């Protein structure tokens, strides 16, 4: 999965070979300089050596010249035998023929007593060094000694020196080559590591967002053929934040890693999975021959995530909302492809999470609608567009209303009546839910106070908490504060929290519930039966009531399965000392069944639709009247 950057490694290659060139040139220059310097110094010492010799000869031969003693002169010259570089030597008393001479071998030649040589003292030729020294006696020149030395020895020495230098050069280059090689490897390693770091998410070791953008744009370039296209799958873990909050970042990271491993193990080698955000993953899928692989992969992911992840002996459940988009729809544009997948993913989230959506063009409208909902929702509280409606809960044992559930209604100035199903997820995503949630609590408290003044005090009012709200550590004290402000008894309030929400973040929710319970509030688990409650946890939650999800109530009586589930939940609730309420009760038959299985309370259209607060008094009165 490692993204290969075409530029990676090129820099190190370049710098290493240029380092070698520089080393080579530097060594070569050094060698040439050394040899040249050596040549000059050898030549100089050679010259000085011979100057000494010619001086000795000329000094020694003064008398012989003075006495014109050729024999003695030659004897003196013959002493040059010991000086192996001297080829020949001659004494001239006048230019032309030498007066006496010495030659080493047959091929040796004598240096002529030219004026230039006499004036210069010495002359280097290609093979020889000629020297001349005037012999003076009694203040007058009486002759000239010339000497010719072969440069062979000089060249020999120079060659030896050059050879040694070349050896040193080669050895140095060898060492340098090894060092550069090592340096090159290190630089290449470091570059590869940097590239890896720049393109890889450290936790999951998947390509990161930066790499994702590169890979996706490259992949889009590669699928220009009309029968091929790309599909992009965006995946957001629904409850990762709460896992992170409850287990800590370290375990959150472990979970991300495990999710990455599990999901990528189900992919083809050509599919590329990236982690592009905190709990967001992207999968780039190449599809050939107009096949659509996005949907089956999304289904596969949902199935793969169904099994819990074991993080340090905790079984952690995660679900994902998945959106897919296809390059076939979007004219090969990376921005459009990503945006579409994102829209589809939000659609999936809005649908209740743990599901997937394939992008359809009409989703753009939904996305725009969601945007306008969000924009309008921001001013809903200030514009007083929100209201609470109350739906009664009927106690079947006493046949009277023991509570009302406060339900939010929004009549937008711009959008008209907006269903909570539409705007609550938007509020949840945008974070507006905290503000709205608190508004609901304060409003409910105020309403309780109003009813109390009307002598309507023998029922509880329940309020729903959203997942995002429950992550607020100050929620319990905020609620207490609201009740205190409204001067109502905490015993009048009931909190409903969904089972799924509760299970997402068990430890911190237990803490919250215990805190609320200690203030005297009643606690109810909403939508019970849809989450994956562990019985062990259920026992630990400080709750008072289970609310059976409307999905189970809808098909009773008649659906044996649902009847069995309801019966079991009631048995379980009663077994744990909890009351059980069923919601969504719309028919007499449903009521009859629930009564038969000893359900404690019901809520639903059969009793009453949610109603504005000012209708409650009338409703209660009419109910009493009917009885």
């Amino acid at each position, binding site marked *: 999965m490692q993204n290969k950057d075409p530029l990676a490694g090129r820099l190190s290659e370049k710098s290493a070979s240029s380092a070698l060139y520089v080393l080579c040139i530097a060594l070569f220059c050094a060698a040439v300089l050394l040899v040249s310097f050596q040549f000059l110094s050898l030549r100089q010492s050679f010259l000085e050596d011979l100057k000494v010799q010619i001086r000795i000869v000329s000094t020694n031969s003064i008398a012989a010249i003075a*006495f014109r003693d050729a024999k003695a002169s030659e004897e003196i010259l013959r002493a040059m035998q010991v000086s192996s570089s001297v080829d020949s030597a001659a004494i001239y008393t006048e230019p032309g*023929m030498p007066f006496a001479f010495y030659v080493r071998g047959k091929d040796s030649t*004598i240096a002529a007593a030219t004026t230039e040589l006499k004036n210069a003292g010495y002359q280097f030729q290609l093979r020889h060094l000629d020297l001349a020294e005037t012999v003076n006696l009694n203040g007058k020149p009486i002759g000239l000694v010339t000497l010719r030395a072969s440069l062979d020895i000089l060249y020999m020495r120079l060659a030896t020196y050059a050879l040694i230098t070349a050896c040193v050069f080669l050895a140095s280059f060898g060492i340098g080559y090894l060092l550069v090689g090592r340096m090159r490897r290190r630089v290449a390693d470091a570059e590869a590591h940097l590239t890896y770091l720049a393109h890889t998410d450290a936790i999951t070791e998947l390509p990161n967002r930066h790499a994702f953008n590169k890979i996706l744009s490259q992949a889009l370039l590669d699928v220009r053929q009309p029968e091929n296209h790309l599909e992009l799958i965006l995946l957001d873990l629904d409850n990762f934040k709460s896992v992170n909050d409850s287990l800590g970042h370290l375990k959150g990271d472990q979970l991300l890693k495990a999710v990455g491993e599990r999901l990528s193990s189900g992919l083809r080698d050509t599919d590329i999975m990236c982690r592009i955000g905190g709990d967001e993953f992207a999968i780039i899928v190449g599809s050939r021959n107009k096949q659509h692989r996005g949907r089956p992969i999304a289904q596969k992911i949902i199935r793969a995530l169904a099994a819990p992840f074991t993080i340090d002996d905790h079984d952690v459940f995660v679900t994902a909302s998945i959106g897919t988009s296809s390059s076939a729809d979007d004219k090969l544009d990376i921005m459009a492809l990503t945006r579409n997948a994102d829209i589809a993913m939000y659609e999936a989230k809005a649908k209740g999470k743990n599901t997937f959506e394939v992008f359809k063009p009409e989703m753009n409208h939904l996305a725009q609608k969601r945007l306008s909902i969000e924009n309008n929702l921001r001013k809903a509280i200030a514009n007083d567009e929100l209201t609470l409606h109350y739906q009664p809960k009927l106690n079947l044992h006493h046949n009277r209303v023991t509570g009302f559930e406060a339900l939010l209604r929004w009549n937008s100035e711009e959008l008209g009546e907006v269903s909570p199903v539409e705007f609550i997820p938007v509020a949840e995503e945008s974070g507006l839910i905290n503000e709205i949630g608190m508004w609901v609590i304060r409003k409910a408290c105020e309403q309780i106070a109003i009813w109390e003044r009307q002598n309507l005090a023998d029922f509880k009012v329940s309020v729903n908490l959203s997942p995002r709200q429950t992550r607020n550590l100050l929620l319990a004290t905020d609620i207490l504060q609201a009740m205190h402000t409204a001067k109502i008894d905490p015993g009048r309030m009931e909190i409903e929290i969904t089972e799924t929400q509760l299970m997402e973040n068990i430890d911190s929710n237990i803490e919250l519930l215990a805190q609320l319970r200690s203030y005297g509030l009643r606690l109810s688990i909403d939508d019970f039966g849809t989450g994956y409650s562990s019985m062990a946890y259920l026992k630990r939650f400080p709750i008072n009531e289970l609310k059976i999800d409307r999905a189970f109530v809808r098909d009773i009586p008649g659906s044996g399965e649902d009847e069995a589930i309801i019966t079991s939940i009631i048995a379980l609730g009663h077994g744990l000392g909890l009351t059980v309420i069923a919601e969504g009760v719309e028919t007499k038959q449903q009521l009859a069944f629930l009564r038969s299985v000893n359900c404690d309370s019901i809520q639903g259209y059969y009793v009453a639709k949610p109603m504005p607060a000012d209708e409650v008094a009338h409703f209660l009165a009419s109910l009493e009247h009917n009885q």
Partner: protein
Amino acid sequence: MPTIYKPVREVLAVLVTAWLACVAGTAHAQHAPENQLKAALIFNFALFTEWPQAYLADGEALSVCVAKHSLVSEALVDLEQKSVNGHPLRIKFLSDGESWQNCRVAYLENDAHSKLPPAGKKFEGQSVLTISDRPTAVDEGIMIAIAVENSRFVFDINATAARQAKLNISSKLLRLARKVY
């Protein structure tokens, strides 16, 4: 640049000798080249000899004494303009009985010399370079004896006598001598 082989060298040696004779003879070839050569030798001997400072101060004239009417007298006159290592030459032709004191070089010609035995005694205690052309002169205490061998002049040196006379004869000269005593 001439390349010289052994046969050529021999020819050269002959030529050199001939040339030497020519050089010596340029002055008075018509008279006696032998005496010219002897005069040149005497001059050269002086060149390679050092006198003690006490006997020959810097710049002081160097007296070369020879008996009147010697064979070399004429040749020696030509040397009068020359100087030896900064000492102008003075040639003194001495009559019989004339003092040889103040001479620094004494040339005792074979005939003249025979009349003055023993030559060595004569200059005892003096720093006088004694030269003679009698081949056996060194045996008689003369410092340098000129002889002819294979038609070339050669010389023997009595270094002991020279040392006794506190004269320093250059080793360069010594090595040219046929014999050194």
